[in-house]
């Protein structure tokens, strides 16, 4: 099969393509995967060759564990509807343990995990999904008789690096939302100081996970992160600043309710409580499910699911601003403000009337000369 140069713009060497092909990966898929992942990592196109060489024959052992999670992140990766990313990533890694997809169960599965952690000590990548409960001595989540905290500490410390997928393992997520009955914490809080990268989102975007793994394969280290441990390539820009509806925002065209004229015409969802202006994520550029769509494209405002504590800080999801503490849910900051201004005006108005009728308090009475 000959390749036209257009579809292999980065000129991945033939020999690398052959190696990938030998592993049963279609070369077109492989080129596309390498090019897109390089782009997702915000690397120049000249790096495609290096990325391709790194992923063509390495297989990195991965242990994927779940604590307090809904398996949504596993789903996001496995249910990818096109073969490319999902399949290639499963080809790139050697999944040693994953509750969702492995055949083994019970003691057998635990034994497999223990052996993998032992055999690949310091080499395996740990992927954590779900938050770590610390309440009641960790009794809220146990695996094979061990608490999630114990399990997590052991695996994180033995790993080459840890990738937290989804908001729960990254920041505590929904289990950690007030009143946090299980005392859920993030992996970074459970094992401070360990090499951890956070890929928050509800669920994680599979392409960001792939890109992170490819980064590790290519450069032998985790990608550069921000102060919250999120890779800059994926979380370095605000949703609002890359949103396809931004033109409507700047123009002043807003959907006021779901299904109104503005909404049907694709106007900005700011007034419907969109949290794009507060959320750092690459959803508008990468989208979900191999570029199929993302919430704002589908007509629903961003709920800020990849920000720390989003369940508490980004709600009410259909309001722009949080509820003012101590006031009813229908009271907006502006209603309260207008009330405050009216009360002030009234109070000082009355004060003024009373002051007008006040006698003998004006100063310098002796200097006043009345004009004829």
């Amino acid at each position, binding site marked *: 099969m000959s390749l036209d140069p257009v579809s292999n713009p980065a000129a991945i060497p033939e020999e690398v393509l052959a190696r990938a092909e030998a592993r049963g990966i279609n070369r077109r898929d492989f080129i596309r995967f390498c090019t897109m992942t390089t782009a997702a990592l915000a690397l120049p196109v000249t790096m495609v060759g290096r990325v391709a060489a790194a992923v063509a024959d390495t297989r990195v052992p991965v242990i994927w564990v779940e604590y307090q999670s809904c398996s949504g992140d596993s789903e996001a990766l496995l249910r990818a509807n096109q073969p490319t990313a999902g399949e290639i990533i499963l080809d790139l890694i050697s999944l040693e343990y994953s509750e969702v997809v492995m055949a083994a169960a019970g003691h057998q599965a635990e034994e497999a995990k223990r052996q993998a952690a032992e055999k690949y000590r310091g080499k395996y990548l740990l992927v954590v999904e779900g938050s770590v409960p610390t309440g009641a001595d960790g009794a809220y989540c146990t695996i094979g008789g061990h608490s999630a905290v114990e399990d997590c500490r052991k695996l994180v410390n033995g790993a080459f690096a840890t990738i937290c997928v989804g908001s729960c393992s990254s920041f505590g997520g929904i289990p950690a939302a007030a009143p946090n009955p299980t005392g859920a914490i993030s992996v970074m809080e459970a094992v401070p100081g360990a090499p951890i990268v956070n890929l928050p989102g509800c669920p994680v975007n599979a392409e960001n996970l792939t890109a992170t793994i490819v980064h590790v394969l290519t450069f032998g280290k985790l990608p550069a992160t921000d102060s919250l441990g999120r890779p800059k390539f994926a979380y370095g820009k605000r949703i609002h600043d890359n949103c396809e509806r931004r033109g409507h925002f700047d123009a002043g065209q807003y959907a006021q309710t779901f299904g109104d004229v503005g909404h049907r015409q694709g106007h900005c969802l700011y007034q419907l409580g969109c949290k794009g202006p507060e959320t750092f994520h690459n959803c508008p550029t990468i989208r979900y499910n191999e570029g199929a769509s993302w919430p704002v494209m589908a007509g629903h405002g961003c709920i800020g699911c990849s920000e720390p504590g989003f369940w508490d800080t980004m709600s009410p999801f259909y309001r722009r601003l949080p509820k003012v503490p101590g006031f009813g849910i229908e009271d907006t900051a502006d209603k309260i403000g207008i009330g405050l201004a009216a009360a002030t005006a009234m109070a000082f108005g009355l004060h003024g009337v*009373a002051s007008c009728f006040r006698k003998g*308090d004006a100063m310098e009475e002796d200097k006043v000369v009345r004009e004829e």
Partner: protein
Amino acid sequence: MLEIRYVWEWPVRITHWVNVLCMLMLSITGFYIGSPFMTASETSQYIMGWMRLLHFVFAYLFTVSVLSRVAWMFLGNHHASWKAFFPWTTAEGRRNFVKMFRYYTFTGKKISYEVGHNPVAATAYLGIFMLFFFQIVSGFTLYGMYAPGGVWSGLTGWVLTLVGSQWLRLLHHGVMWLLIGFFINHFYSGWLMDVKERNGTMSGIFSGYRYIEPRDL
């Protein structure tokens, strides 16, 4: 003999009126940013764009003005000094504060005789300057979010760690209403004192001059 005294030097007056202009513009544009009360009929319009641009232009002007006034607290006369905003640190200030407070609450008859700010007003201004700083810090924090790793986000990142962007927005929004509430009070008190003090309170913030009887001090 009644004296004409030059009390409010030009930097005090200029920064005051620049602040008033900024307050007006920042409140109108900020209110629009919070709840866009005009909608565009064409996508080629740029209403929110202009509102935000104006908000940021006046935000910079406001910041320069407030910082200039702060500098003048160390360079100007003793009425403009930072010490004037802490009247209750001296025995006389505390006495006059009580006197003034009782006058306002109809429990006392006498107004405290002052050349500069009266102690109650000065205390309010201290609070207002705090709110000014709060708006500047919270505003530039929100502003910095467009460019993580940039100058503003570098200077203000700690604010987001402390408060979180949604709460910060609510507070930035709420403080606007506090400032509007202050303004209503402030305008009223200015009028009241102009009527009762008869020493040029209002014209003083335009001209700088007030009419003082030294015997009564």
